Each structure stands twice: as C-alpha cells, then as structure tokens.
C-alpha cells in the first residue's frame, strides 16, 4: 500500500537531490579527456615521422629502378 502512494504523491513531493561530482563535472571531464586524446594522438600519428607502412597501391607513382 505504501508503495502505491508513490504513484500519486511522490511526483509532487519529490526529494531534491544534491548534484554529485558526475552531474557537476561529467561533461567537462568527458570533453576535456576527448580533447587531450585527440590532440596528443593527432600529433603523434601524423607529425613525428612514424612510418606506418601504408600500401603503395593508389598512393605511390612507380619510378624507374634500373641503372
């Protein structure tokens, strides 16, 4: 019986909950983390000279090799 009261009454008399850390900073942490990740790995993958060994197909123009 007590629980069925919930359907009528609690909707009006809802207890206000204090926002927790995730409510306050969740979006900031998520976007901040994504930003750090993209910047660091964007730089690492493209700018520091890592040889990825991509396929020459469609990319490399063959050059004469015989001397």
């Amino acid at each position, binding site marked *: 019986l007590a629980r069925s009261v919930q359907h009528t009454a609690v909707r009006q008399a809802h207890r206000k909950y204090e926002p927790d850390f*995730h409510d306050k900073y969740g979006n900031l942490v998520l976007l901040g983390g994504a930003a750090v990740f993209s910047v660091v790995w964007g730089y690492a993958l493209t700018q520091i000279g890592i040889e990825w060994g991509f396929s020459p197909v469609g990319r490399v123009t063959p050059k004469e090799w015989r001397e």
Partner: protein
Amino acid sequence: MLASRAFSLVGKRALSTSICLRAHGHAGVVKAEDFSLPAYVDRRDLPLPEVAFVKDLSAQQKALKEKEKASWTALSVDEKVELYRIKFNETYAEMNKGTNEWKTVLGGVLFFLGLTGLILIWQKRFMYGPVPHTFSDEWVAAQTKRMLDMRMNPVEGISSQWDYEKNEWKK
C-alpha cells in the same frame, strides 16, 4: 531465549536482549550492536525491507504514526508521503535512476590514453633511431616499380591492382 530463561523471576514475558541487560546490569549477554540487527536496504528485488528506514521518530512523526492508526482517508497527501518516507529511503524511481558516472569514467580513460600518446611521442623523439633509408619516397617508388615489373603477386596481390595497359593503378 537463554536470557529470558535465566531471568524467569522477571516474569514469563519474552525479553529482548537489550531489556535483559537493563534489568540485570551485567548480563553475560552483550548489547546487540547495530550491525547485528536487521538492517534497512534499498534493493530492487526486496520491496519490503526488514525494518523501517527511520528508526527514531521525532515527536511530529510519532504523532503522525498515531494518526495512521485511524482511518487513512483522514490523512492528507503530504502526510501519506511523510509516512512513506519514514518507512522507505528511496523510491523505486530514485533507486533505478541512472547517473552521469559514465562521463567521468570515459573522460578519464581518454585522458590517460592521451598521456600514453605522450610517452610514444617521447620515445620516437629520444629513443628510436632514424627510420631505415629503404622507407624514403624515392626508394619506395623504385621498389614498387620493380615489384610490378617482376609481376609480384599477380593473382590477388599488388600486381593485380596495376593496369599494365594504361600504366596506372586500377580504379
């Protein structure tokens, strides 16, 4: 049970352990600690917990509990809610409510993966030697033509991707 048998002189009433202690001073029975008594718990699969949520009622709440003994139609909506909150902590809706914890978790994971990337950058800069000369653009271009000239992997591999008539990569 042992306690009530020992103090039968106090009467044949069933005695709780705490009353026994008060009645007899040192009892040989230890006062029941909170953790050993039935506890309240908010669980989706336990609709009626063993005890009410609020144990010690204020004077106002005690009065309300008296009013509850009469006809319930006399109770206002707010009083019914107050009675509910005495008996239960969270509603099912509150219990089931999701949180934003995933944002903190995912953001934290991405951040630390970013720090890992910094380690890789340091390694490339300070640890690894230069890339072998066979990876330079001219060498790769010459290497590629030599592979195509000797018809390397002609069935499904690299030579099958080259159009020998038009002298270009197949579209």
